[in-house]
């Protein structure tokens, strides 16, 4: 009954939760992601060497003033390769996430709102696609289609659609019978109008979080596939591939692994932190991306 009273809780067991330093939690990841986007656009121009040139310096030299991040086994400049590598992974991740999440969310929302047989069938299909772990499904699709940028996008879209559909569906379900939806039906609104004009604005925050989490996951998937050799193909520099190529000299030239690893790590953490800041219940939702 007490609408205005503070939430009931248990101070005896646990202290209260309040969003402290919220602005900072949002600003730092946004700044990092923005920096990476700049890298994707201007990285190649800023690179001191061509990322594919062999013997820009002696192979496997550590960081120097000429080679900030050192050189790899072929004498390629690691700094240039890291800079240039940003473009492919960010571009592919964004495109794949856009396709996968928007298609998945649309399917999930429609399926959730309309219910009935179609919903039942779609969700069984989703179950089957989700029976294989994401990386495995992507691997299988990529082996049958062959590794290329476009196929990478296709594979990741296929991996994302069922997951996003589930999230969007469960976001829509509790809203289905609410007063404003019934009121819309009473004025003769059709299902598409209800789904996209009445319901979608209310789940947009959740979809934004979903997009962020999926984006982080796409970065992770694409770099992992690259590491396994099924992603972006040489000679285009790819962070994942750089690490797997450098794997064998890690004991003599750790920088060849360290800097690309750092490049991936920072952006994935930043996007995750962004999703976390966007959603108050980030922890619960984050779990759905496993």
């Amino acid at each position, binding site marked *: 009954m007490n609408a205005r009273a503070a*939430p*009931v*809780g*248990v101070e*005896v*067991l*646990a*202290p*209260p*939760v*309040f969003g*402290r330093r919220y602005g900072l939690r949002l600003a730092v990841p946004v700044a990092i992601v923005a920096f990476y986007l700049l890298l994707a656009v201007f990285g190649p121009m800023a690179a001191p060497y061509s990322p594919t040139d062999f013997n820009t310096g002696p192979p496997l030299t550590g960081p120097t003033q000429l080679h900030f991040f050192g050189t790899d086994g072929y004498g390629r400049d690691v700094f240039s390769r890291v800079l240039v590598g940003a473009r492919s992974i960010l571009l592919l991740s964004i495109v794949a996430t856009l396709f996968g999440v928007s298609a998945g969310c649309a399917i999930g929302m429609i399926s959730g709102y309309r219910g009935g047989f179609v919903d039942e069938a779609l969700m069984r299909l989703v*179950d*089957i*696609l989700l*029976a*294989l*772990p994401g*990386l*495995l499904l992507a*691997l*299988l*699709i990529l*082996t*049958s*289609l*062959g590794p290329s940028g476009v196929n990478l996008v296709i594979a990741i879209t296929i991996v994302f659609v069922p997951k996003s559909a589930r999230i969007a569906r469960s976001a829509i379900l509790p809203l289905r019978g609410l007063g404003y939806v019934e009121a819309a039906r009473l004025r003769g609104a059709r299902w598409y109008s209800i789904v996209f004009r009445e319901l979608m604005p209310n789940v947009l925050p959740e979809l934004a979080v979903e997009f962020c989490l999926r984006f*982080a996951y796409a970065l*992770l998937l694409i*770099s*992992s596939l690259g*590491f*396994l*050799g*099924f992603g972006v193909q040489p000679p285009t520099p790819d962070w*994942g591939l750089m*690490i*797997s190529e450098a*794997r064998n000299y*890690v*004991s003599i030239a*750790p920088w060849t*692994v*360290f800097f690309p*690893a750092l490049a*991936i*790590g920072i952006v*994935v*953490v930043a*996007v*995750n*932190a962004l999703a*976390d800041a966007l959603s108050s*219940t980030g*922890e*619960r939702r*984050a*779990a*759905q991306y*496993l």
Partner: protein
Amino acid sequence: MLRFVLRRLGLLALTLFAVSVLIFSITQILPGDVATMILGMQATPQDLATLRSQLGLDQPAIVQYGKWLGGVLQGDLGVSTRFQRPVTEVLAPALRNSAVLASAGILFAAPLGLALGLICALRRNSPLDYAISSVTIFAAAMPEFVTGGLMIIVFSTWLGWLPPFAGTGSARTLAQSVSELILPVLALSLVILAYILRMMRASAAEVLDSSFVKAALLKGLDRRRVIAFHVLPVAIGPTLSVIALSIGWMAGGLVIVESLFGYPGLGRLLVFVIRNRDIPLLQSIALIIAAVYAMANLCADIGQRMLDPRVGTK
């Protein structure tokens, strides 16, 4: 409960069937001809044709699938085209190695994640909670080859404490094997540890804020009793499904971690098999992973039902 388990097992069988169809159709459009791959470019068309009919490749896809399925149902997974040995024989050691790695990972991550998650929920917004929460954001986000690579740099290259490869030597002592496993297990379980921890923290926090915990406290119950009997059973339920999801995630993690550390398990075999288009072996590996994953989900659902009698009644 029994009816629920039986129904779910039936559903599981159906899902596995659908997955096998899915895998089969994906492998059908694989580029390249298996016979050419086995015999090499110099093979005569005659030899190729003979091998194709030996392997049944000249038959329509549906017949091939039917034969394969019939074999699987009788426990015969077929013959690996690359190794020319029964699939079961090739799989067994890899499966055992991966099982060691994966169970070590889950046995490390699940209890630790649950315990730390509960502690964080009980001390919400304390410095300890902030520290653990910040670390989990990092751990949850990093791909395994990145954390693994960084750990190799730190613990092998710089500190020289642990070997950078695993499962390669032949004559090894137990201590060696264990020290080889430490880095791969850590790399494999860091992500899932973070997820389990975060889920446990969120769900325990929600339970701590619930009316029934308040009511239990106002009955004058001991703090410990409230946590053990009123908070934990309700809070662990949702976390169980995250543990099951973690097992699916670990399948992907195995592929990465085993490739990174050169560990002779299922994941590395999978990459090899894909490169060599060994379809019988690929089918079997994918099916095993799907089956383990589905079983994990089923166990989580059963566990949830046992902990919380409300589940499934709505």
